[in-house]
């Protein structure tokens, strides 16, 4: 059932006057989560920007019941919470909302464990491509060549291909999403919530502060990631991959916008050489070839 703008609920589960930076993509993501799933959500939040966006006790910026938990623990806590809700017969959607670190690095073991056990939770990786909350340090999800405060000349390693790793866990639902395409994200959230078992959604979240672009361009940068092919929107139900509509044109390499259009908007890529850009272009080609092959195309 396609999601339309008009039908989206107006009730705010993310409250204004919160502690997010202007133009924050995590705030956008939290807003869309509420539009998608409403008050069924119990949010489990490991350390990251979202821990701080909530603001200071005794107040909080979320209508969601929000459970702040240690960095490496999110999916295990969520699995326990989900088990309790099932035992008590309560209709809840338990969502572990982690960033780079809480999902792909310090949180990797708990993520993989919950996926392997097929625990009934949704893990959303809100990927701003660095450890932003602690001041823009490099993570495994930082792309090749990006400046961070621990890679001043640009990261040498490639971005960890987390969506593919999660695909290989053979869980019921894996998807990528972007804050630039909220209707797509919302549809995927609703699909995930309707499935029992472990669901993973990787949300691309361009961060103005860490990527060095004007906060008014968050959505623009998110869209360019998709339009250049650098971020591929897809979903996989029980391993069957579908490329999502916003990404479909870019299966055709000739339709992709030049990577430079994406790169030049971001100060973090200022140190990229022409060779680096070629490396990134090849990475885009490889990523598309891989996903299309896996999709059986």
């Amino acid at each position: 059932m396609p999601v339309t703008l008009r039908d989206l609920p107006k009730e705010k589960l993310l409250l204004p006057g919160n502690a997010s930076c202007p133009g924050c993509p995590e705030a956008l993501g939290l807003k869309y989560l509420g539009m998608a799933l409403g008050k069924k959500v119990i949010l489990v939040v490991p350390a990251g920007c979202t821990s701080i966006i909530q603001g200071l006790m005794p107040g909080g910026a979320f209508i969601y019941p929000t459970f702040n938990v240690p960095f490496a623990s999110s999916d295990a806590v969520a699995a326990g919470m989900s088990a309790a809700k099932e035992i008590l017969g309560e209709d809840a959607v338990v969502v572990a909302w982690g960033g780079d670190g809480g999902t792909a690095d310090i949180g990797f073991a708990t993520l993989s464990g919950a996926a392997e056990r097929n625990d009934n939770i949704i893990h959303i990786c809100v990927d701003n491509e660095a450890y932003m909350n602690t001041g823009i340090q490099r993570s495994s999800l930082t792309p090749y060549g990006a400046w961070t405060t621990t890679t001043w000349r640009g990261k040498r390693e490639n971005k960890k291909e987390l969506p593919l790793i999660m695909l290989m866990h053979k869980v019921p639902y894996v998807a990528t999403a972007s804050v630039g395409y909220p209707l797509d994200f919302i549809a995927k959230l609703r699909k995930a919530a309707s499935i029992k078992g472990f669901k993973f959604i990787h949300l691309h979240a361009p961060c103005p502060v860490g990527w060095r672009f004007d906060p008014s361009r968050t959505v623009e940068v998110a869209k360019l990631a998709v339009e250049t092919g650098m971020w591929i929107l897809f979903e996989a139900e029980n391993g069957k991959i579908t490329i999502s509509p916003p990404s479909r044109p870019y299966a055709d390499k000739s339709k992709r916008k030049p990577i430079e259009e994406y790169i030049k908007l971001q100060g973090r890529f200022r140190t990229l050489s022409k060779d680096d850009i070629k490396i990134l272009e090849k990475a885009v080609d490889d990523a598309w070839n891989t996903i299309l092959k896996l999709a059986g195309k």
Partner: protein
Amino acid sequence: MSEGGVKSKVLPISRPCVGVAGKTGSWRVMRPVYNDSKCIKCRLCWLYCPENAIDLNEEGEPFISIDYDYCKGCGICATVCPKNAITMVPEG
């Protein structure tokens, strides 16, 4: 399962409130200005406001209202508006 004795314990518990970080409108350097004559009611500004500071008025005019107490002036609304119905002007 019941909850007991809560009042006597000092707990790390919070309840939601608008403006938990204060009147974040004071963070603004640029402010969005809405020109309803150009507005085509596409709702994109409402959809993309990260602060939930834009509200829609389905029934009447103006179609959108911006909560300047909390709008941080990021400018996303102006960027996504297809009709330049929102412009960013310097604050103050």
